[in-house]
C-alpha cells in the first residue's frame, strides 16, 4: 500500500510540473504582453520599455521559465503584474489568500447542498421508477440543469432582490453593519475563516457523531446522544460567535450567500440526482436487495440501508472531485453575484495577461484536483484490494 501511495504521489508531482510548464508556455505564445496597457496618447514608449524591463519581460523565455520553477520550488508564486484587476507587485499568495476563503465558503456549501439534495431525491425517484413523481423530478431536474447560469442568476436577482427585496444584489456585506468593525481593522477574512472552520468542524463532528452513536442499540438512546451532540456543538459555536462579536457579521454573510446558493442549487442539484438515480437503478437489481426484501425488512430499510449505501460509491467519487473543483469558484456566479473569488481572479488574470496570477490560481486548482484524484484512488484502493495490485 505504501509503495502504491508513493507512486501516486510521484505521478501527481510530475503531472503538476507538466501543467505548470504547459500553462507557462501557453502564455508565452500569446501575442503582445501586459505593457500594451501603456499604449496611451501621453505615455511615451520609454515608459513601456521601462515597465517591460522591470517585470523581466525583456529576458529570454527559457530564463524566465527557469526562474519561475526555481521560485516555485521555494514556495514563491511571484508578484502580480500591474493590470486593471491587480496591483503590480502584490504577492500572488496574498491574492489567493484573500480570495480562497470566499470561494471555499460559498461553493462548498453549494456542493454540499447539491449532493445532499441530489442524493436524497435520486434514491427516492429510482425507488419510484415509472411513477409520475419520477418523471416529474427527472424532467424538472434536466430542464433546470440546462438553464444558462446567467439567466437563472439574473432571474433570481430580479425576483428576490428587486421585486421582493428579500436579498441584496450581491457582495457579502452590508456596509452599515460592518462599518464599526472595519474601522477597527477587521477584514472580511476575519469572518470568512472562522465560518469555514465552524462549518468544517460541524461536518467532522457530525460524521464523528454518526459513527460513534451507530452502535447504540436503543433507538431513543441513539437519537438522544446525537441530539445532545448537535446541541452541545451548536451551543459552543454560538458562544464563540457571541464572544467574538462577529456573529452578526456571519449572519450578514449568510444572508448574502442565500441567493447565489439558491440559484446554484436550483440549477445544479439534478446532476448528482441523476447519477444517484442511475446508480440506484443498477443496485436495485442486485440479489442482496432481493434478499433484504425477502428477510421482511421495510421498504425504507431496504432502500436506505442496503441499496442506497452501495449506490453511493459513484456519487462519492464525483463529490470528491466537485469539492476539489470548488477552488476554481465559478466565474459566472462570482461575477453576477459580485463575489470576487478564485474564478474571478482566474478570468481577469487571463484576460489581462497577468501571467503570475493565472499561474498561481491554476497551480492551486491543479494541486486540489490532483489531491482529490489521489484521495479517490486511495479510497478505492482501500476499498478494493484488486486496484493496488493491478
Amino acid at each position, binding site marked *: 500500500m505504501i509503495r502504491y501511495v508513493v507512486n501516486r504521489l510521484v505521478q501527481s508531482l510530475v503531472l503538476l510540473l507538466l501543467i505548470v510548464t504547459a500553462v507557462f508556455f501557453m502564455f508565452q505564445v500569446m501575442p503582445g504582453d501586459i505593457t500594451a496597457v501603456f499604449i496611451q496618447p501621453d505615455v511615451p514608449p520609454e515608459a513601456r520599455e521601462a515597465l517591460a524591463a522591470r517585470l523581466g519581460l525583456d529576458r529570454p523565455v527559457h530564463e524566465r521559465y527557469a526562474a519561475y520553477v526555481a521560485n516555485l520550488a521555494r514556495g514563491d508564486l511571484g508578484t502580480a503584474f500591474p493590470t486593471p484587476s491587480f496591483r503590480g507587485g502584490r504577492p500572488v499568495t496574498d491574492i489567493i489568500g484573500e480570495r480562497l476563503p470566499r470561494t471555499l465558503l460559498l461553493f462548498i456549501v453549494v456542493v454540499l447542498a447539491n449532493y445532499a439534495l441530489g442524493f436524497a431525491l435520486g434514491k427516492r425517484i429510482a425507488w419510484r421508477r415509472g411513477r409520475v413523481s419520477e418523471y416529474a423530478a427527472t424532467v424538472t431536474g434536466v430542464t433546470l440543469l440546462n438553464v444558462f447560469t446567467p439567466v437563472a442568476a439574473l432571474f433570481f436577482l430580479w425576483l428576490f432582490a428587486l421585486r421582493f427585496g428579500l436579498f441584496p444584489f450581491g457582495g457579502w456585506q452590508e456596509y452599515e453593519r460592518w462599518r464599526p468593525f472595519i474601522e477597527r481593522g477587521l477584514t472580511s477574512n476575519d469572518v470568512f475563516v472562522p465560518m469555514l472552520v465552524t462549518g468544517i468542524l460541524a461536518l467532522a463532528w457530525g460524521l464523528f457523531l454518526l459513527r460513534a452513536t451507530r452502535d*447504540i442499540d436503543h433507538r431513543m438512546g441513539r437519537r438522544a446522544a446525537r441530539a445532545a451532540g448537535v446541541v452541545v456543538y451548536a451551543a459552543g459555536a454560538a458562544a464563540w460567535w457571541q464572544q467574538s462579536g462577529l456573529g452578526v457579521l456571519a449572519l450578514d454573510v449568510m444572508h448574502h450567500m442565500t441567493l447565489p446558493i439558491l440559484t446554484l442549487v436550483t440549477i445544479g442539484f439534478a446532476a448528482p440526482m441523476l447519477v444517484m438515480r442511475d446508480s440506484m437503478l443498477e443496485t436495485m437489481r442486485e440479489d442482496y436487495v432481493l434478499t433484504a426484501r425477502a428477510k421482511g425488512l421495510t421498504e425504507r430499510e431496504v432502500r436506505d440501508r442496503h441499496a442506497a449505501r452501495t449506490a453511493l460509491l459513484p456519487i462519492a467519487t464525483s463529490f470528491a472531485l466537485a469539492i476539489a473543483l470548488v477552488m476554481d469558484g465559478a466565474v459566472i456566479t462570482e461575477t453576477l453575484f459580485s463575489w*470576487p473569488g478564485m474564478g474571478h481572479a482566474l478570468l481577469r488574470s487571463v484576460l489581462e495577461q497577468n501571467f503570475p496570477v493565472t499561474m498561481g490560481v491554476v497551480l492551486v486548482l491543479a494541486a486540489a484536483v490532483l489531491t482529490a484524484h489521489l484521495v479517490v484512488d486511495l479510497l478505492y484502493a482501500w476499498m478494493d484490494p484488486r486496484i493496488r495490485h493491478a
Partner: protein
Amino acid sequence: MEVDLGMSRGGTLATVGLALLALVGIALIAGAPDWRVPADADLDDPESRRSYVTAIFEDITARNPWSRFGPDTTVWNSYVAVNAHQTLFTYTTQRFDWVPQLAADFPDALEHDPETGLWRSRVRLKEGVSWSDGTPVTAHDVAFTFEAIAAFGAHELGGNFPTHAPPDLLQRVVAIDDHTVEFFLTRRDARFNFGILLAPVFQRGYWEPHVAAALESPDPLAAIFEVDVIDEPISGPFLYGTWERGSFVNRPVNRRFSLRGARERLYAEGAVRLARDGLYDWTAYGEPASEPVLEVTTGPHVESVHYRVYGTQATGVLALQAGQVDYLFNPLGLERGFQDQLRDVPGVTLIENATNGIRYLAFNLRREPMSRLAFRQAVATLIDREFVTDRVLQGVAEPLYSVVPPGNAAWHNPDVPVYGRGLSRGDRVREAVRLLEADGFTWAQRPVVDAAGTLVTPGRGLRLPNGQPVAPLELLGPGEAYDPLRATFASWTERWLNEAGIPVRPVLTAFNAVSDRVFDRQDFDMYILGWSLTVYPSYLESFFSSRYTGLRGHNAAGYANPEYDRLVDEFLSEADDMARAREAAFRLQEFLARDLPYVVLFDTPIVEAYRSDHIRFPTTETLGGIQNSTFGGPVGFTHAVQLVR
C-alpha cells in the same frame, strides 16, 4: 448492580468525544478574538444618510498615489481616488478652460535664461489652502513632489508620471518662498501647462521620510509603491476612508478641505470667474458681461462618497433600479439593452454625451500601395461612414472626420477636407477610380458603374503604377466580441474596397494581437483601432511626429512629413498664447485630413444613468459624460454633486 444503558463501544466513544469537544470548545471560546462593538458606540452613522453611492464594476487595486499615478493607473483607481491630490491647475466644468486650482494665477510667461540656456516660469500658490491634517499647502510641497519623481525616474515610475514630469523637458523645480515655485524647462513647450502643471502635489512632511527610505532600499520603486497611505494627508474634498477589497470603498468628507464653498462661474462670452469668500476672487478669459451660463459651487455637499463593487453591469443596473445606488460608473457607458431597461424607471434619468475619442483606420505608410497618397485618398473616398453609422449601426455611433473630435470644441477644426463626403455609392467608386488612375494605377478589370450609379462590374486585379499587381492586403482589427462596431466597419470597408478592385481581407482578432503587430512589430498593411484622447491635443505630436515612428512608438503608421513636424513643434511651443496654439492645431488637422495617415471613422456617444430623485449634478452636458476621465478635470462631479432625497 450493572445498569444496561444500551451503550456499547460507540456510545462510550461519543461520550468521550463530547467531553473532548466541550473542553476544546471552552478553550476556543475563551480564546476568541474580541471584536465586540462597545455598548456606547454610535452606530447611527450620519454619513450613510448623506452618502452619494456609486456602482463600480471592478475593484480598485491601489490607493498609494505613487502606484496609482504610476504603473497601476487604472480607470477605476483614477475614478475612486479622484482629486485626492489637488493640482496647481485644473479644467473648468463643461468647457474645460484651463484655470488655477492650488495656483493663485496663471504662471508667469516663460523667460529664457541665457546663462543656463533654460526657460523658466514662476507660479504663485493660493494662501490659506491646507492639507487634511491642517498644515498649509506650500511651494515646498510642490518642489518636493517633482524632486521625488525625478529621484525615482518618471519613466521608471511609469503611468502618468512621464506626462507630469517629462525628463526631456523639466529640469528642476525650486521653491522660492512658501508660496512661489519656479520651474526650469529645456524649451518652450505646452506640456508645461497641460502636463507638468496638472501634476498632483504630495505633502512633503508625510512623504519625505518614505521617499528617503525607499531610495535607500534595494528596490526603491517597490518600496514606495508598498507604503500604506491610510494616514496620508490629502488636499482634496474626500479622505481615503475605508476600503474592503472586492466590496466597497467609502470616502468620508475632508472637513479641512479649503476650497469648500468655492464658486466657479462660466460666462457666455468666454469669461471664467473663480471665487471663494475670504480666499480668492479670480477672473480670466475676458470680463463677465452677463449672467453666468453655468455656476458650480464646490462642496462636498455630501458626507461621503460610497463606491460599491458590482461584478456586472446587469447587477448594477438592478441596484440602480431599486434605488440602492445613485450612479453607475462605467467607462463604456450603458449598453442599449440596459438603456431600454432603465428608460421608463421612475426617478432614473439617462443622459448622452459626446466622448473625447476616435476610432480610425490607419495605413502602414512604409509599404506600397499605402505609401501612395492617391491610394489612401481612394480608400477614404470609398468608406461611407454615414452609411455604417446611420443605416447599419442605427445611430449607435457618430461619424467623425478629424483626429480632434468635435466634442473637444476648443481644439476641433470643423472645416477639414473630407474625401467622398455626401457622394452616392456609385460616385464614390467613380471618384476612387479617378484618383487611382491619376496616380497610374491600372486594373485587370476596371470597375464599371452605370449611369444610374450602380456598380455593374466590380474591379479586379489592381496594379501599381509600375505594373506590379497589388498583393492582397490585410485589414487588422479587434474582433466582434471586443468591439462589434469596429468589426462592422472592417466588414463594410472590405466589401467596398474589393468592389473597387483593391484586394483586402479583414483579420479580426484579439486586441493584444493587433497591438502586437501594429506597435511592437509594425508588421501590418492597415488596421482599425481607437484612442481615448486628452483635452489638450498633444497627441498631434505623439501620434504623427516622425520622432515616434520607431518600434513601439505611437506613430505606427510611419507618417513622416517635415512640414508637419515643424508645425507640430511650433504648436507645442505655444505655451503662453493659446490662440496661436489653436490656430496651429487647426492647421495640423488639415494636414492630417489631406495626407491621411489615418482615416478617422467614428466614435460612440456615452450614455449614463443616475437617480435624479436622489442626486443632482451641476450639469449633465459635458464631454465624456459625468465620468469624463480628463486628468485634473471635474471627474465624476463628486466635489459638486448634491443630494435631493
